[in-house]
């Protein structure tokens, strides 16, 4: 169905075609229909102009996190970028994620993220844990479980994007994961030293771009990164607080040493 506000409208998409080393932008004219998103336009190009255009996609419902790209310079899911947000005469520039190496056209190699993930100590409950959990204790963690791993936050983070600290900095996605584990009422592992010395949470300077681009509206900075930074402060930068805690009976922080080995979970009956 044509766009009722402007029947016959055609949008011009400038799409990156090529690899990391060699490529160029190609322009395509695409008819705009009501409710159309950028991913629809990319599919139109595949079907009508160039079936070899590479794009990763799956659900088209902003839930699989596959179609991440940069539309007019802003990281976004193509399936969530409506065509009616652009001016009628505006060229729409579609590029692959900048932070991860291009494989072909709009497809990038995000496997570095999975390598980082491997090093995070997984959920580690006590063997004799009481598995009764109240909603108020699990609510904070549930927000972090909404993450669809689109890696838009990793892409927009200037520490990874511009400063290339992929050797040292875990990025917002994995701080969200660690927050979900550290704040879990049954988790017993301590990942604070890992956060400080391996994940280098200190590299984050709270500029909140990760929160701005998150398609799941996770408050990454306020609810995950900053609370983690405060926990790192508790442990490493607040001698007075630590002294008082020790005086009052010691830290209640968990004691299981951080390890990336999976822990077997057998809930007690």
């Amino acid at each position, binding site marked *: 169905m044509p766009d009722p506000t402007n029947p016959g409208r055609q949008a011009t998409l400038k799409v990156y075609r090529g690899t990391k080393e060699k*490529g160029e932008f190609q322009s395509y004219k695409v008819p705009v229909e009501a409710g159309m998103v950028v991913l629809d336009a990319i599919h139109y190009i595949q079907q009508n102009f160039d079936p070899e255009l590479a794009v990763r996609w799956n659900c088209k419902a902003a839930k699989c996190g596959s179609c991440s790209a940069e539309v007019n310079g802003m990281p976004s899911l193509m399936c969530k970028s409506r065509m009616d947000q652009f001016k009628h005469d505006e060229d729409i520039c579609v590029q692959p994620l900048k932070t991860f190496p291009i494989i072909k056209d709009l497809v990038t190699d995000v496997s570095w993220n999975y390598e980082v993930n491997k090093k995070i100590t997984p959920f580690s409950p006590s063997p004799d844990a009481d598995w009764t959990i*109240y909603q108020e204790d699990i609510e904070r963690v549930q927000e972090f479980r909404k993450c669809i791993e689109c890696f838009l936050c990793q892409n927009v983070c200037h520490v990874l994007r*511009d400063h290339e600290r992929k*050797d040292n900095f875990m990025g917002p996605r994995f701080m969200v994961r660690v927050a979900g584990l550290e704040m879990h009422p049954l988790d017993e592992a301590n990942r604070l030293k890992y956060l400080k010395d391996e994940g280098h949470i200190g590299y984050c*300077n709270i*500029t909140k771009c990760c929160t701005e681009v998150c398609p799941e509206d996770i408050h990454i900075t306020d609810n995950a990164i900053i609370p983690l930074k405060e926990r*790192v402060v508790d442990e490493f930068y607040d001698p007075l607080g630590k002294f008082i805690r020790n005086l009052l009976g010691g830290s209640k922080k968990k004691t299981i040493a951080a390890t990336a080995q999976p822990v077997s979970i057998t809930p007690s009956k």
Partner: protein
Amino acid sequence: MTQSQLTDLPENKLPTSNALPAYEGPTERKDNWWVEPALIAFVFTAFGIYSMFRAFENNLYEVGPYLSPFYSPNLKQYVPWFPLSPAFLILWIPLSFRATCYYYRKAYYRSYFMHPPACTVGMFKGKGYTGEQSFPFVLQNLHRYAFYFAVPVLLILWVDAFNTVYYEGAFHMSVLTVVMFANCVLLSGYTFGCHACRHIVGGKEDCFSCPKNEQKLKPAFQAWQLVTKFNERHQQWAWTSLMSVAITDLYIRYTCVNPSLAFQIF
């Protein structure tokens, strides 16, 4: 610095960001991304110049029961030997509280340091970046200590406001009193919505309602919920309280010149 073992990938297998031909220049954004950081830099600079002018002025800050927030508490009588304006004995507290505040960090890293000025705008590149991991920005971790100092100063501002209601044995009310109370409300919303406060009152806990903790942590949960409500609008509290401090001070300055400007109601 500790050698990171973030991944098992060897150095030469680490991915690098895309550059030409897919990307060129600092950004591909077409919108006016520079407006917000420029506006923030302008307002911060204007506030900084005004507050320095007022601190150095060392005059027109107290009339009758009204005392400027830049000079409160007035320590002049306690340290007569101090060669500079007494404002300098106080201003370092709100300054350090705001300078280490998680919201203001975002604002000035973008506006002044351009790290980055806006999302996907890469003005500076290179692996030398260490953020808040090393000196001087590692000092941002002392934000909670700045909070501890800021709370008594805020309480004194509340006392100042109440002092304008009851003095000389009678109750009084003026427009300036209302402005001073509004300033205290906005400063309280900002101070008690602070991320460090949110952590201290309960955010540090993993489990508020575990059977073994229930009695002990219920108040912590309620406090954490309350602070979270303020924290959700921390940016708005930060800006409105910054403006209210400047407006209250300016109002008191002009009231010092012309006391009728307090607009006494009774």
